[in-house]
């Protein structure tokens, strides 16, 4: 496959090639059979490989992940789909108490080579429960690998690598980018899935993003360049484990960092990134590490999501707040106005 490829097509091709390469791979979930999944990522797989390899299961996410645990215990490599981010929550206990811990609680004797695919994030005008960014829940759990591709080539390569991994992988697919296209030749192998990559080189500030926000970050970097600011965009790719080396090397060079993600900022993934960069790059930093995140509210209705999701403008505003003028004198900030009581 050469030419223009969308992320959805690249993921489909990765599943097809994995099914062809290894009889132990099985793909199942809700509507992934003849329908091909609500986003068509499993399109054609049942027709090509049969009901034994790609099939619809009962509609119960804990059951889907729980049965995948048993299949992996037996030696299969199941790839299961959670239809939408918020619909993965019924499987939460299976993921955190069993998927993530089985290797540890059997002293390495039982590995679970399984992949949990989760379309996540907003930006598609969806109804409620269809636009969550759930990455912090998964990334907080030791024992899981949590990765998210931003480009079709990475989608292909990282999904193949996830299926081949001896560790369980939560594979977060940025649903608003399923239709984003790229000139690519498949099959392709990109950087290892546990490494961050520099998507655009720059000297003044490092902008760290992942999944759906990588495209937004690149647009912001292009806009900043027109205003004379040179932005380096780092695509984190692996949320757990975290690639400290790549992120810190960039920030030590630029001296400024902004993290961007769709999820709410409070106790969000960006807090971990900011903390790590502060710990590892403190003496290189010219300004505090800033975050540009979703608001700390439940995901808003479609008409309001543009006010919730990080945009190019909000990222540019964050760049403006990176203390370029060095006017800070150490004087205490003016006291904030008292809160209005009973307003």
């Amino acid at each position, binding site marked *: 496959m050469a030419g223009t490829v969308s992320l959805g097509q690249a993921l489909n091709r990765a599943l097809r090639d994995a099914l062809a390469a290894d009889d132990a791979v099985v793909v199942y979930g809700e509507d992934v059979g003849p329908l091909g999944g609500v986003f068509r990522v499993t399109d054609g797989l049942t027709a090509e490989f049969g009901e*034994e390899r790609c099939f619809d*299961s*009962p509609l*119960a996410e*804990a*059951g889907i*992940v*729980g*049965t*995948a*645990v*048993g*299949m*992996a*215990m*037996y*030696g*299969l490599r*199941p790839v299961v789909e959670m239809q939408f981010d918020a619909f993965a929550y*019924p499987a939460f*206990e*299976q993921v955190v*108490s*069993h998927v993530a811990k*089985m*290797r*540890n*609680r*059997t*002293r*390495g*004797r*039982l*590995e679970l080579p399984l992949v949990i695919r989760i379309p996540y994030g907003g930006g598609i005008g969806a109804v409620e429960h269809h636009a969550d960014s759930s990455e912090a829940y998964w990334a907080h759990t*030791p*024992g899981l*690998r949590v990765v998210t591709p931003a480009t079709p080539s990475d989608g292909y390569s990282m999904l193949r690598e996830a299926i081949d*991994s*001896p*560790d369980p992988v939560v594979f977060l697919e940025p649903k608003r980018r399923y239709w984003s296209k790229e000139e690519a030749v498949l099959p392709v192998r990109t950087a290892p899935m*546990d490494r961050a990559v520099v998507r655009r080189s720059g000297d003044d500030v490092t902008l760290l993003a992942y999944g759906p926000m990588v495209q937004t970050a690149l647009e912001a970097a292009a806009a900043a360049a027109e205003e004379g600011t040179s932005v380096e965009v780092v695509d984190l790719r692996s949320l757990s*484990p*975290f690639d*400290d*080396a790549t992120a810190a090397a960039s920030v030590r060079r630029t001296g400024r960092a902004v993290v961007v993600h769709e999820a709410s900022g409070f106790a969000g993934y960006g807090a971990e990134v900011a903390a790590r960069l502060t710990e590892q790059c403190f003496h290189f930093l010219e300004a505090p590490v800033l975050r540009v995140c979703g608001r700390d509210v439940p995901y808003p209705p479609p008409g309001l999501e543009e006010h919730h999701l990080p945009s190019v403008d909000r990222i540019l505003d964050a760049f403006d707040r990176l203390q370029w003028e060095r006017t800070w004198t150490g004087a205490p900030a003016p006291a904030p106005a008292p809160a209005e009581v009973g307003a």
Partner: protein
Amino acid sequence: MKRSDDARGSAPPLPSAEPVGLVDPTGRRIAGGAYDTPEPGTLRSLLRGMLIGRRFDRQAGALARQGRLAVYPSSRGQEACQVGGALALAERDWLFPTYRDCVALVARGVDPVEVLTLLRGDWHSGYDPRGTRCAPQCTPLATSAPHAVGLAWAARRAGDDAAALVMMGDGATSEGDAHEAFNFAAVWKAPVVFLVQNNQWAISVPLHKQSAAPTLAHKAVGYGMAGVHIDGNDAAAVHAAVSEALASARAGGGPVLIEARTYRMDPHTNSDDPSRYRDDTERAHWEERDPLIRLEALLRSEGALDDTAMAGFEKEAESVAAAVRERYSGEDEGAPEEMFAHVYHAVPEQLERQRRELLAEIGEG
């Protein structure tokens, strides 16, 4: 034209409202039993397993009282369920036990010292799940049930004749994972047998606050699965029912849900106080239905057990307890740094840094 209801099954027969048994509490055979009574050799193995199990259980309870086990959930009273179930399994089959199924694991042949690993508070199961074909004991309720379904489905797909036996308690049948597992197993016709040890109490909560179903076995019916209700203190009945269910599941007949009616004679664990929620009269009622007494009585009355054989079993049980006392150290043999070793296939840089940090803290770096 594809029809949405092509594969719908016929309604399975309703389980019996009263538990079905083969041997009554006094050790007499029940006429017209629902199953063939196991051969005398099998019955002797069941008695032997229960004697060893009860002695092991008492030993483990002592270790808990001495503070050498973090906690011990007793199996006393439930030996027929655990031994009857475990001995019905073929070597190729898998057992999915809970924290209360130590006696089942011992009956399955797992090293009794390794069985106590999780209960001494360790972070791993002790025994090798693949080698023993026993999943790690499951502490969250019912969550290993879907694992058994997936494993059994995978075995069937591979042409392997293995089946899986899942143990759970009455309280666990209220958990969503139990129902999802029942449904997946029935839809996939997975070779799985769910053995519910209904011991009447989920810690302090009695069965009537747990379920309004006529019996827990009735829960099978809605999933298109066979449900049977048996006397869980009758080791012959448990062994026969589980054996028949495994054979049917292996033959493609789909899963079976067995409710074995029994009683938790001891507190939930050594740290529980049942005087706060139940009285001793109930316990006395069940004392008369002890699973060991009735099987011994049956075998003796039919000339299949003499004092010599009985003394041999008791001696074996004592030697198992003695071996536990001798070999059980109560301490994890792993070094502190081992907690980083098994989280991932290869230790990531982040954990490697923390491992070195720990070694420096304890003066070994």
